[in-house]
């Protein structure tokens, strides 16, 4: 490399790195999903996962915390194809989404990565004429058969442009909390005092609490861009989702805010499964554990971050990572 090129991006390091019980270098393509299931190191994880799902369905808040250094599969994307109108934009993609790690979807514009992300919480249904083939499972249950709003409380999304509501900070974070209800039953009216601990917890997890603790009634739209995006993350985390989807969350932000949010993302991965779409390769290098490279709707290659960036197997991956196109 010539001296003029910038130094390679380094992974954001945390104290604990997640461990996978399975072989990292096996591509999931063409292999049955079962092979990817991680054997839990202690007996606690799958029963905990099952009881989390059950308790979620009853609308309760408590859930046992998962030991940080384990990785559990949360969502399974199996041969999913998506179309808008008559054109397939995603073609037969299979991926695992695991709690304890960050999955990055990279690729050029039009590769279908955002569409794939939006199908994970059925947001594609908002657009008329969207079709889906294949199976997406959350904790083993096909998301199509779930009630859509319950799904979206378990799989939260943060968008590219920060979109806080025109309300106060507190009301933004408490927004989804006020809407929780068991299917078909009435909502419980929750007072501010009741909601405050959860709001503060979410703001803490999003790394925003220190900055706004003084006045939680401050209008959300008056925050800076980076703060607004962290507020959106806090809002998404307030309902304690199992999966967090991030659609290029830093593309509208300055570098300092970007760095803060990337730290945040890596720190959150032990609690929530994270899928991040990014067109910024260096960002993927910094935050991701596994990377999936998509091109024109197809999954070209999937592997660990180290392997994808150091020694990609596919020529097209090599071209993309090397900057030949984008």
């Amino acid at each position, binding site marked *: 490399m010539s001296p003029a090129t910038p130094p390679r991006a380094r992974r954001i390091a945390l104290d604990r790195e997640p461990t996978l019980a399975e072989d990292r270098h096996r591509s999931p393509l063409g292999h049955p999903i079962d092979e990817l299931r991680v054997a839990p190191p202690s007996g606690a994880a799958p029963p905990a996962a099952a009881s989390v799902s059950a308790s979620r369905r009853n609308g309760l808040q408590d859930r046992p915390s998962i030991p940080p250094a384990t990785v559990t599969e949360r969502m399974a994307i199996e041969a999913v194809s998506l179309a808008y109108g008559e054109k397939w934009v995603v073609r037969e993609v299979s991926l695992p989404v695991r709690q304890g790690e960050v999955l990055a979807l990279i690729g050029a514009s039009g590769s279908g990565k955002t569409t794939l992300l939006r199908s994970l919480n059925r*947001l594609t249904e908002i657009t008329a004429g969207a079709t889906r083939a294949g199976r997406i499972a959350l904790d083993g249950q096909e998301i199509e058969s779930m009630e859509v*709003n319950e799904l979206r409380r378990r799989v939260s999304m943060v968008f590219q442009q920060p*979109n806080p*509501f*025109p309300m106060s900070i507190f009301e933004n974070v408490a*927004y989804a909390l006020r809407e929780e209800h068991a299917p078909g039953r009435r909502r419980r009216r929750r007072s501010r005092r009741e909601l405050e601990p959860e709001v503060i917890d979410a703001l803490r997890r999003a790394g925003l609490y220190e900055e706004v603790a003084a006045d939680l009634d401050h*209008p959300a*739209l008056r925050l800076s861009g980076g703060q607004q995006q962290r507020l*959106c993350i806090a809002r998404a985390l307030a309902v304690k989702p199992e999966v967090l989807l991030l659609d290029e969350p830093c593309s509208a932000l300055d570098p300092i805010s970007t760095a803060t949010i990337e730290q945040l993302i890596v720190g959150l991965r032990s609690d929530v499964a994270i899928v991040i779409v990014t067109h910024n390769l260096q960002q993927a290098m910094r935050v991701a554990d596994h990377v999936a490279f998509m091109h024109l709707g197809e999954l070209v290659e999937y592997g660990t971050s180290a392997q994808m960036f150091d020694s990609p197997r596919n020529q097209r991956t090599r071209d993309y990572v090397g900057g030949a196109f984008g």
Partner: protein
Amino acid sequence: MLGALSVSVLAFIALMAVTVFAKAWPSFAHNGIKWFFPGGDVDQQLGAIIQGPKDPAHYNYYLRAWPLIWDTIMTTGLAVAIALVVSVLAAVFIVELAPTSVRRTIDPVVRLLAAVPSVVYGLIGILAIAPWLERAFISEQRKHSVHEVVQLTGSNLTLAVLILALMITPIMVAIVVGALETVPRSWTEGSAALGVNRWRTMWRVSLRTVRPAILGAIVLATARALGEAIMLSMVGGSRAFPVNPLDGTTFLFEPVRPLAATIIVYIDGISVVPLEQTLYAMAAVLLVSCAFLSLAAWAVKQPMKKYGIRT
């Protein structure tokens, strides 16, 4: 030159305001604050004004216009309240819930309801609906219970309020739908992504955001309702009677005559000077009410700006 023409608009309004208040003054001066109080039969009083002395020094101005004011408040208030609820629900339906085919039908429907002339509404009301109302709801006992005071017919408060509400609904629907369509998609999408159903998203985000527009719609609709003269004169009934809620359900069937309708009904007597001035007094009350409405709406919109709601 263009500027001069444009300013002529201002001149018109200024002239109108000055004229109305100047000509209204004698009526207010002679009655004082009691102009607004109850006290007797308005129709009789207006008749007396017309028949009164022709000598300027002895003009009769006696009027206790409370029945008219109360009728105006009741018809306008009830009509706007009904129209508000109906319009907001209809706007939510149009923007969010209606399938495309239904949406394509409902656009022309709203346009149609806005376009029908008020006299046609009045005709349908008085010829088709009033007899039905009379048959269905006004029994002999009901008539008898108030017969010393007033005669009940099919032309009454209910008919006036219903048709007035139907007339002002399209205005409000148009404004609210226009405003709802400007709510940024990022907010509605964000709300959906948080697992909030369509109705709740509408209620907590979209409708909350368009509160200024809803206020504006209320103001416009109220101004329209205040100014509606012809239709109300046709379907309101035969007398200027202050509808009495204490009469129980019968109050729904008592005749009404709001201010604007009164002006139209008595317009033939305008050559009689004291009556002319009395009618101008009523017009002045209407003008002041409309102005006050606009001011109130502006004042209420100010605090909303704080949270980033565009007013």
